[in-house]
């Protein structure tokens, strides 16, 4: 017997799903509940925040006091395994350009630690080319997705407020929490500039919605995963109930190599390496759904070459991997001197901001094409690694309890008291905006490099255009003004120059990357049709961020969920008609 062989799983499935994050979890949930036999492949281990607990742990329980590690980039208590670099799984860059790729290999993927910001795209977001001539329109409009947004709202749960804003569609909302103190200061400050500050829209249960999930108990730690499943993560809200139907076999630690196709060019299943036993496997299914994340799904398609698909699967258009775009990001923060020496009380609240600012301006009057929203943070959070850093930049600037300004830095009882005194006075804000999807921003297969499984890796090429750079400049100017009008003093982030692109984060850093397998009506210009179905391989679907034609000034998750649900219902229908 040869030492290297490929084992075939004996069971035949209706549908094989690659990836268990927002898109894959939703597909598994919808299909399994329709009685369809599903195999769900996940490249990481099993995970359930009720069992894999970091919630309500204290900083001293971590020897590094919650600091990040190479294995958990957002902190020792954060729910996401992985980060910007994975051991043995490199990616490369072309022409010295930048793109940082965040990967979380675990059941539920990046939804385990995400910000729970759950915004619908608006009517304009699907038709931006018609408004400003840039990028492309989606082949679908808000009216096509709205019924699915409604269903996602009801299934998953989201709080918010009815605002009747033209491009920020209201949903079916649970009641929002009241603003925190610094958020009231921000609200007053922004009002002076006619900038709206409205209740945030987060998928956190302020009221129970079913008997399987608990209600928020206001610990502010959604990023750690919730033991009572009171926030949305795919692992607890979709994958768990999907498995409970008995129709889903989940295979963890399964790193998929490629989509297998037959002589007619149809998908027959996938091949994968099992990370536990290091053996090679294949699984067969009538339909293959990719939900491995925008870039990983593109990588799979590009690596799935055959005589019928010589340029990668369903890629004679050569658009797979192209039109990659992430949200823009820039930040600034400061101190509200009035809040120095403040009274203590528990203001943890929900995991994230209680108020935010949706895009409020008309781009026709600006030197950039698309908008951004503003996220706010601050207050009396739980100390962790990094608490108190840089006191020498603070305690020499503001009067102390005795009304006198002391020498910056110091030591001893007086310094010890400074940490108490300034605690809870800090606040900040981040802009998250829309970038233009460009054909020349892409990921492709690096011809020279493989990962430790022997799978060819991605090579990125990405450059911001002037639209994004000018948008970042506008963010910085706006933030400084909001901080000032809120009674604050800027202490960090006011360092934007033309040379540093006004503090615009490197592409990838906001972890909203989309567009690599975009949908469209023209098979020459798109990889998928309007049902997330590959133009050239009708039993292949992609349901992650890849199908997005354009990322709005929103967060992508709610739209990934709605489109995955829509595609899954289409698959059920087509399977019934024996069209796949």
């Amino acid at each position: 017997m040869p030492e290297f062989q490929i084992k075939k799983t004996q069971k035949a499935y209706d549908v094989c799903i690659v990836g268990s994050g927002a898109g894959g979890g939703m597909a598994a949930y919808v299909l399994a509940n329709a009685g369809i036999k599903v195999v769900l492949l996940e490249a990481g281990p099993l995970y359930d925040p009720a069992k894999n607990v970091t919630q309500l742990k204290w900083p001293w329980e971590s020897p590094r006091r919650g600091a990040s590690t190479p294995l958990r980039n957002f902190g020792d208590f954060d729910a996401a395994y992985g980060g910007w670099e994975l051991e043995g799984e490199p990616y490369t860059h072309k022409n010295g350009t930048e793109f940082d790729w965040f990967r979380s290999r675990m059941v539920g993927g990046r939804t385990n630690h995400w910000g729970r910001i759950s915004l619908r795209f608006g009517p304009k977001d699907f038709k931006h080319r018609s408004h400003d001539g840039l990028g492309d329109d989606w082949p679908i409009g808000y009216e096509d997705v709205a019924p699915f947004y409604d269903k996602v709202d009801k299934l998953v749960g989201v709080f918010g407020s009815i605002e009747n804003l033209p491009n920020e569609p209201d949903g079916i909302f649970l009641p929002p929490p009241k603003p925190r103190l610094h958020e009231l200061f921000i609200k007053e400050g922004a009002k002076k500039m006619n900038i709206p500050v409205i209740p945030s829209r987060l998928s956190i249960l302020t009221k129970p919605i079913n008997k399987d999930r608990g209600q928020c108990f206001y610990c502010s730690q959604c990023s750690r995963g919730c033991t009572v499943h009171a926030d949305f993560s795919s692992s607890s809200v979709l994958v768990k109930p999907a498995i409970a139907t008995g129709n889903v076999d989940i295979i963890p630690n399964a790193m998929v190599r490629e989509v297998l196709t037959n002589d007619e060019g149809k998908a027959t299943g996938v091949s994968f390496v099992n990370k536990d036993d290091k053996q090679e496997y294949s699984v067969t299914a009538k339909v293959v759904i990719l939900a491995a994340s925008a870039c990983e799904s593109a990588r799979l398609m590009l690596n799935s070459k055959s005589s019928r698909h010589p340029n990668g699967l369903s890629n004679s258009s050569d658009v797979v991997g192209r039109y990659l775009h992430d949200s823009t990001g820039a930040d600034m923060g400061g101190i509200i001197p009035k809040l120095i020496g403040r009274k203590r009380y528990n203001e943890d609240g929900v995991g994230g901001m209680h108020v935010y600012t949706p895009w409020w301006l008309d781009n026709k009057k600006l030197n950039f094409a698309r908008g951004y929203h503003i996220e706010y943070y601050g207050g009396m959070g739980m100390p962790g690694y990094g608490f108190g850093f840089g006191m020498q930049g603070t305690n020499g600037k503001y009067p102390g309890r005795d009304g006198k300004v002391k020498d910056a830095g110091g030591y001893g009882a007086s310094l010890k008291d400074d940490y108490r005194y300034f605690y809870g006075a800090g606040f900040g804000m981040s802009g998250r905006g829309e970038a233009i999807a460009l054909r020349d921003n892409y990921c492709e297969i690096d011809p020279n490099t493989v990962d430790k499984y022997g799978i060819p890796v991605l090579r990125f090429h990405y450059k911001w255009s002037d639209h994004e750079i000018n948008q970042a400049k506008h963010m910085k100017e706006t933030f400084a003004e909001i901080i000032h009008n809120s009674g604050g003093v800027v202490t960090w982030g006011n360092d934007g120059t033309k040379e540093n692109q006004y503090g615009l984060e490197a592409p990838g850093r906001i972890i909203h990357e989309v567009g690599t397998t975009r949908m469209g009506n023209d098979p020459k210009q798109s990889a998928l049709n309007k049902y997330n179905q590959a133009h050239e391989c009708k039993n292949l679907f992609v349901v992650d961020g890849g199908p997005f034609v354009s990322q709005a000034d929103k967060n992508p998750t709610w739209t990934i969920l709605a489109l995955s649900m829509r595609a899954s219902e289409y698959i059920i229908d087509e399977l019934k008609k024996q069209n796949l």
Partner: protein
Amino acid sequence: MDRRKYLKTLAVGSVGAGVLLEACNTDKKPEATAAPAATELKYDRNAAEVIREAKLQAETFFDAHEMKTITVLADIIIPKDATSGSASEAGVPDFIAFIVKDMPRYQTPLRGGLKWLDLQCMNRFNADFASCTPAQQIELVDLIAYPEKAKPEHQQGVAFFNTMRDLTATGFFTSKMGITDLGYVGNQPNQWNGVPQDVLDQYGMKYDERTLEISVKFDA
């Protein structure tokens, strides 16, 4: 607070995310000679983390003299006062001993800084820092604890002391003693029903009618 901002706002507000998030820190770790049994940590650790924690726990970086000096410095930075105990009583030296293994970028600045300190003391007082009298120790610390007043020739000492101040403060205020001292009262199940009325009154703030109407309500 979302994952990105969580650590950022824990600092008093004077530093950005770069200092706090070690996201890109991929420095090579020193090889461990022997790995002890699986870590005793009482929170979620995946398979790769269990291996890494065990390796880190098995390593030693600072020697006994360095640890003694770190302990003296930490207690000068955060001494016992009427409210709470000292840095060493809160376990800060152990935290610093661990963090330099976890984040090797601290190793050379701290080891070199400790050496710099000892040499300064040898030249002035003919003794290493830890062996100096408390008055001599303070005389030296005063040269490096105030960045805006320090002499140019003491800049390396200032940089070292800034790092020691950061790590001592973080170690102290993330300990049980420090969090009690600080008065952080969260991290427990509760109901958020808005800013307490007396605090709103203090700042002349109030919730508008619409906010009160639409926000989540709790039974009294």
